[in-house]
């Protein structure tokens, strides 16, 4: 099965490689501007947040939200194009590949893309002073990858359900944007009312941020296993659900 999943992964990698420069610029440009604009600009007025310099607070958050965005875009728009427009999946299904292999390959690829773009952002964060503890900072990468798997799996579920590209707007407005704003990327979760905090605890980005921030800053790490488990559970359940929904859609 590993070889079959890698065949799907490799196909997407080969396409990416052709336009790697453009793709990297996109993945990397937005977060870079956030760090520069908010980290420096807002940081100047805020000074510290949660006991650490705002640039460091923000950098760990942006790293997670970038992992989310990169995997989400790949799992929605790109995967949908391959599933519904180009019929790439159908071509694959006429070979020994099955839908589970294809969905797994897509998720793995989207997580790889998160990893690539976040590695670049991590370097920028390091240069801009957003990393307080360079010794543990490399651990950010496995966290990014796990987050990538988690958000890609959820995106594949949405992709398998979507009648058209327009459908993705619901997912962005109802989940991605709220996560971006309320899961601790820009300010500590404690700033939210209790009810909102409880809801945020159910969302995967909260756990990605909670895991990531202590790795890049001097803040202490709590409940690491819980955060890992939540991200892994979203990835696993998302994968199973995405395969089931894609089967219902494509194997008629």
């Amino acid at each position, binding site marked *: 099965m590993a*070889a*079959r999943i890698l*065949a*799907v992964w*490799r*196909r997407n990698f*080969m*396409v990416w490689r*052709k336009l790697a420069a453009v793709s990297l610029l996109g993945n990397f440009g937005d977060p870079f501007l956030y760090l520069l604009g908010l980290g420096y600009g807002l940081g100047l007025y805020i000074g510290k947040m949660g006991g650490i310099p705002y640039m460091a607070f923000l950098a760990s958050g942006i790293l997670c939200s970038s992992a989310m965005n990169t995997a989400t875009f790949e799992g929605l728009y790109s995967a949908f194009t391959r599933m519904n427009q*180009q*019929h*790439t999946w*159908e*071509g*694959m*299904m*006429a*070979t*020994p*590949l*099955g839908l589970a292999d294809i969905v797994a390959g897509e998720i793995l690829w989207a997580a790889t893309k998160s990893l690539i773009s976040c590695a670049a952002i991590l370097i920028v964060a390091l240069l801009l002073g957003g990393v307080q503890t360079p010794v543990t900072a490399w651990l950010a990468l496995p966290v990014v990858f796990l987050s990538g798997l988690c958000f890609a799996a959820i995106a594949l579920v949405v992709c398998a359900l979507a009648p058209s590209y327009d459908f993705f707007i619901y997912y962005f407005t109802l989940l991605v944007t709220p996560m971006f704003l309320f899961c601790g990327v820009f300010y500590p979760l404690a700033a939210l009312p209790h009810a909102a905090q409880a809801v945020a605890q159910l969302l995967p980005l909260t756990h990605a941020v909670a895991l990531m921030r202590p790795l890049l800053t001097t803040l202490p790490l709590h409940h690491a296993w819980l955060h890992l488990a939540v991200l892994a559970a979203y990835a696993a359940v998302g994968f199973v659900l995405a395969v089931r929904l894609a089967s219902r859609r*494509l*194997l*008629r």
Partner: protein
Amino acid sequence: MSGAVVSARGVRKRFDGREVICGVDFDIRPGICFGILGPNGAGKTTLIRMLLGMSPVSGGDYTLFGRPAGDREVRARIGVVPQMDNLDPDFTVRQNLIVYARYFGLLPRQAEPRAEELLSFAELSQRGDSPVSSLSGGMKRRLLIARSLINDPDLVMLDEPTTGLDPQARHLIWQRLRELKRRGKTLVLTTHYMEEAEQLCDELMVLEHGRILARGSPGQLKQAHVEPEVVELRGGISDAGVEELCLGLDIRREHVGDTWFCYGQDARLLVSRCAEVPGLIFVHRPTNLEDVFLRLTGRELRD
């Protein structure tokens, strides 16, 4: 039948409570070209998709190389030319073959020589580095055929392989398919074109509304369902006029729009009578599969 590549016994398919394949039985012997004919919506593509595992079988026994339809190991032994172009637009012609080979577990060093060979087989050697988007419809279809052969399959399934192509492109594809048959491949072909079926198929079945209407070789089908000759009459002739022309002859007549089709064992006498009617346009020809097909499935439009 033992030794059959494909065997169907009471195969059924239901979509949303509607039965689209209603218990069909057939066998496909190795090394032949087997044609599945039928009007739009007859169930041709569904039969192929079920065989590939892309559509679950609702009932009956459907086997490929003795294993259940859709089996993963079996998919490694077949090649598929889909009706719809699903080539990878992000890759060149050659890359399409190499990348597809990987889905069968073939590494580039195994796939590369094979890809070159297939490009030449498909007469695409000059276009190996072209993007797929620059290919004509006929070239794309040839590339799809080349791609379907990358795993050296024993069975190749072609779903309307020449629909929408110009005559040159179509004839080239026919030559290539005959070449595959000479190499011992089994071909399963769906088509709307009776000429194509007549050119390529050793055995045929005519499908309608999910049922098999007739089967046999093109010759057998013609013999069983239509007379050997037909005269088509056009040009302001009345029913009575046609009646008079056929008087005393053993002719079966069909009236469609402005044309009369007069079928018979020997139409020479009818032809000589027609020649004496001024203004009458008539064509005398041997019957073909199209006559069989229209006889079996009727002449109303299928939308």
